[in-house]
């Protein structure tokens, strides 16, 4: 048994599990807010994977740079997404994603 937390595979496995939880939440829930939070979970899992693989290379930090930009993009995405949720709620008086069928016809 490898020491817990000092082997790259532990981080990769944890990141995969977190990504799956986020994906399942996005698919299974129909509350738009919960779906946005699931997207944040998935982005976080990807960040963890990037930083973990970056750690294998002792003298390079490009992975951390990537994670930094992903955090910036995730912040922008959350702001725009929540604005869209507010606008959607104003239109439909609900945050159920099943109600978003305006483009259907």
């Amino acid at each position, binding site marked *: 048994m490898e020491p817990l937390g*000092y082997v790259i595979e532990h981080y990769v496995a944890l990141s995969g599990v977190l990504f799956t939880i986020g994906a399942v939440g996005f698919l299974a829930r129909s509350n738009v807010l919960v779906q946005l939070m699931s997207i944040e979970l998935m982005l976080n899992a990807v960040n963890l994977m990037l930083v973990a693989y970056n750690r294998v290379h002792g003298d390079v930090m490009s992975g*951390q740079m990537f994670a930094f930009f992903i955090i910036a993009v995730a912040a922008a995405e959350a702001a725009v997404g*929540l604005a869209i949720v507010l606008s959607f709620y104003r239109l439909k008086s609900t945050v159920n994603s*099943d109600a978003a069928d305006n483009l259907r016809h």
Partner: protein
Amino acid sequence: MTAGNVFFALCAIVSLVGALVTVVARNPIRGAVGLLSTIVGMAGLFLMLKAQFLAAIQLIVYAGAVVVLFVFVIMLLGPDAGAVSGQPPKARFSRVVGVLAAIAASAFGLLLLAETSAAVRLPQTRPDHGSVEAVGGLIFRKGLFLFELATVLLIVAVIGAIAVARGGRPARRATPTKDEGRRLFAGPLHPRDAGRPLGKEGV
């Protein structure tokens, strides 16, 4: 069992439980708290991986800004934020298939990982690995263009968020009056008096 093992286990458990709470909770406020716990746990993992700068950024940006934004929106929506609709969910079959496919893919990936695991130990690093100085220097040497693009993206996102969230009709313009220029600088301060004729006291 060293302190590092315990710290990793603690952070992993905190982030996993937080993620499960985020997805399962009926009340979105609980979901937001679960997301917060995931983010804090992940900041601990970043520390474990010698990414101090990213751990700080994670706490500042995610825990300080994104989660607060979520909580604000949930509070703006009030009880409707967690309301469940009476109708059964649409596209149930494809959702179930998608969930099963996601779980199967992840289980397969984990099995593959356990099977082919080379047990890569984390190597020694430079003493300044992941420090603010080192990562910031790298961003400004190699990723300067990306950095500027990120600033543009954030500004566009802010403007877009304001434009989308304000929504509704554009503010109705007050009926134009004949001495608009004078009214602009010497007009009444309260909107209630907008139509009041201008006296001599203005200028």
